[in-house]
């Protein structure tokens, strides 16, 4: 067979294929395992920690002491708060960028980052 009809060598094809597969994986895998790829940003004092909402679990964070967080069905809540008034526990689960959980005594703020739906991209929420 004449070499000049080969526009792409098999080895190059393999490289391009691998790149495309990697790109596809980077785009789709988070969607498969994480719903819409939503994350919660947990701020404690001046420290920030980002967690994926894709796996149900209960956990604590070094930066937040013994406060217990819970992730369930792509939502997050403060399950056990250290503060006396427990307002942040009463907030319950949040899952949308327009929601937040705030604990003033413990200086904890939880917000949601969503990789999807543009309609959620508001400048602020009030109430």
């Amino acid at each position: 067979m004449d070499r000049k009809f080969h526009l792409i060598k098999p080895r190059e094809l393999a490289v391009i294929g691998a790149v495309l597969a990697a790109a596809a994986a980077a785009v789709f895998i988070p969607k498969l395992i994480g719903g819409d790829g939503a994350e919660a940003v947990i701020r404690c004092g001046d420290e920030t920690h980002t967690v994926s909402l894709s796996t149900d679990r209960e956990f604590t964070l070094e930066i937040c002491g013994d406060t217990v967080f819970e992730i369930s069905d792509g939502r997050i809540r403060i399950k056990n708060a250290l503060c006396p008034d427990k307002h942040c526990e009463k907030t319950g689960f949040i899952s949308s960028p327009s929601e937040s959980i705030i604990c003033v005594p413990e200086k904890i703020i939880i917000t949601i980052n969503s990789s999807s739906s543009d309609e959620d991209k508001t400048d602020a929420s009030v109430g």
Partner: protein
Amino acid sequence: MQKSALALMAACMMFMNSCSAEENTAEEKNFFAMDTAVSVKGNGQCADTAEEIFLRLDGIFDRYSPESDIYSLNQRLDTDISQDTQEIITRSIELSDKYGDQVSIFAGDITDCWNISADTPKIPSLTEINAALDSFSNSSFSLETMSFADEKGSIDLGAVAKGYALDKISDALPDDSWSVISTGSSVLLHGEKPDGNKFTVSVRDPETGGSLGMITSDACFISTSGGYERYFEADGKRYSHIFDLSTGCPSETDLTSVTVICQSGIESDFLSTLIYLGGTQLLEEYMSSGNFGVIAVTENRDVYVSDGVDFQLTAQNYKLKEASDG
């Protein structure tokens, strides 16, 4: 030919990055002040300006801090009162004179008597409530001497402090800058966004905490009052942190949330509390004022929106009502 693969890879990465590259010029900051979390986004040193003003005013307005002006006034100490404290007191009295004294900064004894943010809140006795009501309704404050006439009355700036702070920040920010400063219940939208679009602000669903709907607006101040955010439960009943100054008890309004949009922070704070307290009965007179926009939610899940407010209701189980329906 390896180059084409690299180029393809680079193109893929650029494509992926383009989704997150927006807003990279905006500063963002979160801090705690005035018993709430404040979030700031924008340009023109807005983050530092907002933090400096919030912390400074918190220091002089916090009535529980012995260093504050309000503590001095409430304890009848003879100290110099800062310009800001004089101004917020004067503005608050003007607002009570103009719109109604159902919202007053002199009801600190009523808030104290219920002490709803205590570890174990309890319902005060009738004697305690009556004593607090007497202290409030017979209090007399002189703007000339910046002092109380006698031992009656106690200042609590809770209803207006955040709005006042937002007014001061708005004054301090450069005219050609833009920013969004939110304290949860009060928001300042300053300037014009870099993309030229109007600001969008989600209003909280008073029952679920999700989104009730969306306000689209140019620069303005927005404030929401509701009984759901801070409350305590005793004997199976939920008590709001907003007080009815005629009874000395937590408000039993039939509104669940009131949002006011206007061109002054302290005024939007004051009015959202006032309209919330008035309930649906007094709602109509505020819906057509012209100077401010109102979004009011009733316990029957009716939503009233005044003319001129661009509000898109998104929560499914609420319905929009015309102001004249009520």
